[in-house]
């Protein structure tokens, strides 16, 4: 039995469906991210696990106990909020020790735990500071320590890094992951930032329109998106509607180009139109080494993005992105030059879609 089970949970607000048939099992010590655009239902699902919302349908089970209707203050969960939510009237020590004080732990134990937590978040000596005397990153670390001080069975993080600047976000997410792994705490992490979700999660749940689109490891989600939404939402993608020329051979046609896919085209017939996708980094110039598929077009634009160079290639009516690693000796074509780009059969992904 999984440690945290969210069994077919739905949530309705009047006529609005916020979450529909959400079904997920999370193992002990696992970090699972809920990834999706605003309004997709990820935070509502998290709030149902926390107990702030009651599911309209389904069950929430933590460590074998049905917690569906348990009030939030009686659940073994700790939560970190986007807006830090530190109590402004209390010091750092007061904030971290708040839950322990509520639980009527002895004073010595509270002091000891506060000290341990401050060491865990690399902020020893900050006991007597007030939240307004801390930076955003420090406040969020204190919020994390406060949630962990109670030794919760499940840690819930609701977009904890959204209010921070880019550099601190990157360092703090690594810190959160390290602490989570050190404590082995089961964690749900809500974010709309794909890079954040991919970099720290054991598994990612991609959500859209109140439903789960795909559940998988970051590797699976990025490399083998099962739906058009996942493919479009996670990373940059060249997606195009193609016609099936030969189902058996995996031959497809779009904009006068012909490509082969390694994906099976079961259930489709010749002449059906399907959505296919190719990641920009799976494309390269044909003169650097020809692969199974060759696409001909003209260079539309070239953009430097630091470590990579993004080249736009016009293929008939479509424009494809191609990423290549930057290096000082890179020879790039000129805008308007005719070009051939190439990719393997495996790079051409068929996205889940009903046959037309």
């Amino acid at each position, binding site marked *: 039995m999984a440690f945290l089970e969210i069994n077919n949970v739905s949530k309705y607000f009047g006529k609005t469906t916020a979450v529909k048939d959400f079904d997920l099992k999370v193992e002990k010590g696992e970090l699972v991210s809920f990834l999706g655009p605003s309004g997709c239902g990820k935070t509502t699902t998290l709030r149902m696990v926390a107990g702030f919302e009651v599911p309209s349908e389904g069950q929430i089970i933590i460590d074998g106990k049905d917690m569906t209707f348990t009030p*939030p*203050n009686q659940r073994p969960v700790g*939560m970190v*909020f986007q807006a830090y939510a530190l*109590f402004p009237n209390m010091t750092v020590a007061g904030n971290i020790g*708040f839950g322990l004080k*509520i639980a009527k732990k002895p004073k010595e134990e509270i002091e000891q735990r506060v000290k341990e937590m401050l060491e865990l978040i690399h902020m020893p000596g900050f006991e007597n500071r007030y939240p307004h005397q801390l*930076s955003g990153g*420090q406040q969020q670390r204190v919020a994390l320590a406060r949630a962990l001080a109670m030794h919760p069975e499940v840690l819930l993080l609701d977009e904890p890094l959204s209010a921070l600047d880019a550099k601190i976000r990157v360092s703090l997410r690594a810190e959160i992951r390290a602490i989570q792994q050190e404590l082995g705490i089961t964690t749900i992490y809500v974010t709309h930032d794909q890079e954040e979700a991919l970099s720290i999660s054991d598994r990612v749940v991609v959500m859209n329109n109140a439903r789960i689109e795909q559940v998988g490891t970051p590797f699976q989600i990025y490399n083998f998106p099962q739906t058009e939404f996942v493919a479009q939402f996670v990373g940059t993608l060249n997606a195009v509607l193609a016609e099936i020329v030969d189902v058996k051979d995996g031959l497809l046609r779009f904009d006068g180009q012909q490509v082969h896919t390694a994906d099976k085209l079961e259930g489709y017939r010749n002449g059906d139109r399907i959505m296919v996708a190719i990641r920009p980094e799976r494309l390269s110039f044909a003169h650097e080494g020809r692969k199974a598929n060759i696409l001909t077009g003209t260079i539309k634009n070239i953009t430097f993005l630091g470590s990579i160079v993004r080249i736009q290639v016009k293929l008939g009516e479509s424009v494809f992105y191609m990423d290549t690693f930057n290096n000082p000796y890179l020879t790039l074509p000129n805008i308007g030059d005719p070009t051939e780009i190439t990719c393997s059969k495996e790079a051409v992904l068929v996205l889940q879609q009903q046959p037309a």
Partner: protein
Amino acid sequence: MKRVNLFAWIIFILGIIYFFLPLFSTFEFSLRMKKGVYSFEAYRVAFQDPKFYYNFGYSVLWAVLTILFSLILVVPTAYWVHWRLPKARPIVEFITLMPFVTPAVVLTFGLIRLYGSPPLVLTSTPIPLIAGYIVLSLPYMFRSVDAGLRAIDIRTLTEAALSLGAGWGTIITQVIFPNIRVAILSGVFLTFAIVMGEFVFASLLSWPAFATYLEEIGSMRAYTPQALSLMSFFITWSMMMLIQWLGRGAGRAEEIAVGH
């Protein structure tokens, strides 16, 4: 530029004269009790009157009771409106404005009718008086508390406290109250000032109060009422200054330090 400044100064000085001249005149008059010399005789007489302490004491008692029950009524209500019923806010705001549109006399007779009819006859108790004062102070108390609640993220703080195992009592007393302390104190001081100067309720409901005492001696003596009027002003101003002082403290506390 200089002309504008001069004009502003003239307006300011005229305003000061308009406001302070009557007060100064009252003060000057209150010092004339002894013929031919200025003295604080009127104040000495006022302070020697046991009725002054009796009525003033009652007014303080009414103010304290009003503040206590206002807080019990307003803080949880305003908190709940912010936390769970934001759509009800216009209705609550409208209700709190009632004292501005309902004359105190009408309100008093309404209270007498309500509390003077069976099954619950309470007109012999100060309950109708306190109830009236609570209604009277509602716009000030509610708005002060409401402003305080708007300034903090009630929802997230409540949820954070809940997730740490806190119950409602703890949330109200340890999380909400301390964080809107300044706003609550503003409401408290305003209520105190209003109740200390209120006349209609106490007079019509026949309870001792500072304002009714002032009116009573005003009809009998010449100088002492002037002294007492100034004292009444002094109490109100003290309350306003306290609010200002506390408000400045809160502003400083909200400064956010960054860096490290």
